[in-house]
């Protein structure tokens, strides 16, 4: 299961933070990176996230396939933005500087390219932090720590249950799918679209019906053990906060404050070098 979520077990300051801390930091960090379009600040955050990688002892090689995924994704998004809105930069920055002596709707402008640079930097500032979170947070500990953040423990327990049952559901899906394929069900490109969806349903119906039985069994077992009777519960994987946790959260809150401050200073979310 840990494999599924790319958790890499190591001994480092980042790993020692509790899951709750890392989740709060991730939210704050992503908020800061989403909020600002200030090129300079995005550069700083991008560099910082690679520094964090070094601190966490996660090697880039270990997460290279995730970075590859992201790179393709970013590339597709950039192309889409350009195709749909080649003058988006001009709309944002208010000026229009054609490059290479070309002009027309799809001609490259300095503003458009600058927008794409920012767009790219935005990913560079936010994605590594997510990858870092994914590879340094034990999923079970994450579920336990949600409770600490004020999420009701019944909800946190749902998260833990989801993590517990993902491998089971996956295995069951596999078995049913193989059995149905042996009976001649086709889900690949060879079958027409509607037929493909219908074949999917013929795998899903047994899967769902057995999952509903499972819901019944598990909830009966939990009810027998008086789940939900008390206001609080303890967690096997839970860990207490240390001063490093508090420091990390304060630092990330500071990142958000800087982002908001820059918003006022730049009169908007964009840093505009064209005026």
């Amino acid at each position, binding site marked *: 299961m840990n494999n599924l979520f790319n958790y890499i077990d190591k001994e480092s300051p980042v790993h020692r933070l509790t899951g709750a801390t890392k989740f709060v930091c991730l939210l704050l960090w992503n908020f800061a990176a989403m909020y600002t379009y200030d090129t300079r600040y995005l550069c700083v955050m991008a560099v910082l996230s690679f520094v964090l990688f070094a601190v966490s002892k996660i090697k880039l090689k270990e997460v290279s396939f*995730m970075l590859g995924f992201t790179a393709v994704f970013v590339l597709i998004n950039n192309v889409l933005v350009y195709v749909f809105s080649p003058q988006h930069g001009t709309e944002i920055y208010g000026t229009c500087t054609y490059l290479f002596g070309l002009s027309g709707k799809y001609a490259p402008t300095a503003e458009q390219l600058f927008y794409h640079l920012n767009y790219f930097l935005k990913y560079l500032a936010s*994605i590594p932090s997510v990858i870092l979170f994914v590879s340094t947070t034990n999923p079970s500990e994450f579920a336990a720590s949600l409770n600490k953040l004020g999420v009701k423990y019944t909800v946190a327990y749902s998260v833990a249950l989801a993590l517990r049952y993902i491998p089971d559901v996956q295995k069951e899906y596999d078995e049913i799918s193989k059995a149905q394929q042996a009976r001649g069900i086709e889900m690949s490109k060879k079958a027409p679209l509607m037929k493909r969806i219908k074949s999917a349903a013929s795998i899903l119906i047994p899967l769902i019906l057995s999952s509903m039985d499972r819901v019944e069994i598990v909830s009966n077992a939990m009810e027998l053990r008086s789940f939900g009777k008390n206001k609080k519960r303890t967690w096997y994987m839970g860990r207490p906060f240390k001063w490093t946790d508090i420091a990390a959260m304060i630092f990330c809150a500071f990142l958000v404050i800087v982002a908001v401050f820059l918003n006022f200073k730049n009169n908007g979310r964009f840093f505009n070098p064209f005026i």
Partner: protein
Amino acid sequence: MKRFSVKTVVAIGIGAALFFVLGRFVSIPSGIPDTNISIQYGVLAFIAAVFGPIAGFLAGIIGHFFIDFSFGWGVWWSWVIASSIFGCIMGLATMKIDIDNGEFALKEIIIFNVSQIVAHLISWVGVAPALDILFYKEPANKVFIQGLTSAGINILATAVVGTLLCVAYAAARPKKDSLKEEQ
């Protein structure tokens, strides 16, 4: 049944697990390059119809969060939120349908499908693009076309998969008043 009981907690967990597995490992090519049919929304609509809006909301948010989490391409908050809103709306719209007592005939099928179409449109053409623009300042026409495409595919998948699941589940449940006391 539709209140927040232990059963709902378990249903959210297992619903999210189903959502995750179907979204992460099951891909049915739709014919359009790089676009897969997301059958997990059919399942989410079913979970919401059986267990109510809170279950739909949480199963959507947890399942989708873990999909993004495990792909490692960054958690796409705007789309995660849109998924959970879809689950929530479906739960609200189907409050009156009592699938657990085997009630899912033509009238319920129509209610279910009309509400799933509306819910998908709200989520993918309303919420997701609006949040994309708010968070990422992407060009409006790009995100709306992406939203419309996924809304279309999801509506189709939910119409077939969701309806079939509800019908099959309702048929497997004992009907209300199916047992009579002997005189």
